[in-house]
């Protein structure tokens, strides 16, 4: 077919065909559409947002007077910003610690073969598969001030007063310490949001951890057995170093998902009570959209970016080093 078609073709077309066989031409050609699109929908808004963060733009307009780094200093000196920054760090670190411990344990058992494995896997993956907004609404029901199933259970187990004591929750109304207001008291709300984050990230981490275990060659297993590595020693010197790169990837994604999250906090507490559970994304939304200070809102959002870049670069660096050795 090629032979028949070739003589009729214009020389220009043939040169094109030849060029398409050259990877130096073909590669950029195939990548270009994606890059052009990304520049338009991510690059342009991103640069624009950086510009906005240095202006006094207000809601509805996309330009303003140049104010340099004023927005960044104003935002920083706000108590609520400090709280939001602190909460972002707390939620991210605390939930990831829970996730890593949970995923390490659960993945170790999920790689085994046992009856009913598929149903266990289905149940474990549910929180990840369910759209986050929707599962957060279910949590709203679980943590409801009146009908909370948690309070109902704690009441039956006579543990509610113990929790009141542990968390030192005292309500303003006299005597009314129970039911616990899970989303109405700062320390309880911080705990609740951390747990919801851990709950929704855990399945993802488990899946990645399982992939990490699967990637360890059988020879390593055999060799370590011959060398007499067992139990904790094997875990520390063999399993952990080998799984480190992939565990780091799981944690990295977990950090990005948690630190950048808007929906969970917005739906559960909307940053309340009294801005005690604000995180950077919700605080940026509050200032940039609800209060209309577009410039300052952009500045608040921008605080998160270098932080995430730093974490990513560090973790990719360690992951690669761990992989080489």
């Amino acid at each position, binding site marked *: 077919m090629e032979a028949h078609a070739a003589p009729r073709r214009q020389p220009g077309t043939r040169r094109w065909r030849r060029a398409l066989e050259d990877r130096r031409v073909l590669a950029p050609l195939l990548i270009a559409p994606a890059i052009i699109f990304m520049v338009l929908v*991510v690059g342009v808004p991103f640069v624009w947002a950086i510009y906005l963060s240095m202006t006094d733009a207000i809601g509805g307009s996309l330009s303003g007077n140049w104010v340099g780094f004023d927005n960044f200093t104003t935002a920083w000196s706000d108590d609520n910003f400090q709280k939001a920054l602190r909460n972002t760090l707390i939620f991210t670190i605390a939930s990831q610690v829970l996730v890593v411990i949970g995923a390490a344990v*659960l993945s170790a058992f999920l790689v085994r073969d*046992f009856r009913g494995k598929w149903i266990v896997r*289905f149940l474990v993956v549910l929180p990840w598969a369910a759209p986050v907004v929707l599962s957060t609404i279910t949590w709203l029901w679980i943590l409801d001030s009146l009908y909370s199933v948690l309070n109902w259970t704690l009441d039956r187990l006579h543990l509610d007063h113990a929790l009141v004591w542990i968390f030192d929750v005292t309500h303003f109304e006299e005597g009314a310490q129970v039911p616990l207001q899970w989303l109405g008291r700062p320390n309880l709300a911080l705990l609740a949001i951390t747990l919801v984050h851990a709950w929704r990230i855990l399945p993802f981490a488990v899946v990645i951890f399982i992939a990490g275990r699967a990637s360890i060659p059988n020879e390593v297993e055999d060799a370590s057995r011959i060398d007499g590595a067992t139990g904790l020693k094997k875990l520390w010197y063999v399993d952990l170093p080998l799984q480190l790169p992939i565990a780091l990837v799981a944690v990295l994604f977990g950090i990005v998902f948690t630190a950048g999250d808007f929906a969970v906090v917005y739906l559960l507490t909307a940053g309340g009570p009294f801005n005690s559970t604000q995180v950077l994304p919700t605080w940026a939304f509050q200032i940039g959209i609800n209060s209309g200070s577009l410039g300052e809102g952009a500045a608040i959002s921008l605080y998160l970016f270098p932080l995430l870049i730093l974490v990513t670069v560090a973790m990719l660096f360690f992951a690669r080093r761990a992989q080489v050795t």
Partner: protein
Amino acid sequence: MTWRQKSLTYLVVGPFAIVLAFPFYLALVTMFKTNDDLAIQTHSPYLINDAEGNFHWDFWNDATTEHVRFLFEDTNYPQWLLNTLLVGGAVVAITLVLAMPAGYALARLAGGWGQSAGVGIFLIYLIPPTLLFLPLSRIVTNLDLKDSLWGLILVYPSFTIPFATWLLMGFFKTIPQELEDAALVDGCSRLKALYRIVLPISLPGILTVVIFAFSLCVNEFIYAFTFISTSEQRTVSAGIPNDLIRGDVFFWQSLLAATLIPAIPLALLYNAFLDRFIKGFTGGAFR
């Protein structure tokens, strides 16, 4: 496995599975509760009870489908489901058209800088959507796409393309180079080899990308929430919290039904494609 190992396995995975799936069980029970059963606080929230708060094994006699019917007949929920499908479908199509060539080129043709580009793609992920949506909402307004599904269709590929490219890059790397070389030797052009050899083999991988990119669209909240203000144009993630929660009034049974229904098919699809997802995901990062 010995008997002891087996029971230990169940003792560990059992509680984990119960805790992780618990909210979904609770949603399933609550969506069929009558208003009285829901409101009386002595009634067990774990079960469907009769008027006295007792559980019977023929619990379906004490249940009601009234709230599920309300959801489908008296709210825009069916429309939101349809909108979500439309947006997800269109975004997935755009994503595949742009990400497949890019992923292939990065995996096969780009050489050394393909790996660096993989990391670069990841960095795009780190830009918080809360940052982008300030200018994007203005751009969408100026394009006269506010309050329209097209606005979402335009913006969503911004996060599905990096994700899909990363994943597809991983899949393409797992395909033996020899297959393509053979086709090239036989006189196939590179593009034809991509189209005739690589794509058919990667079909499972591509389907995985379809499912996970679609699910990212269903998950998206902040754009759907701010770009669209008429109820009929919303997607599920924005419509449910906006319209089914009115101030302090929660239509709990309908709400929970609305949250559970999309989750089940998604979870089934996730399970079916999980192993392939792992393959592509780790392949993109390390190889």
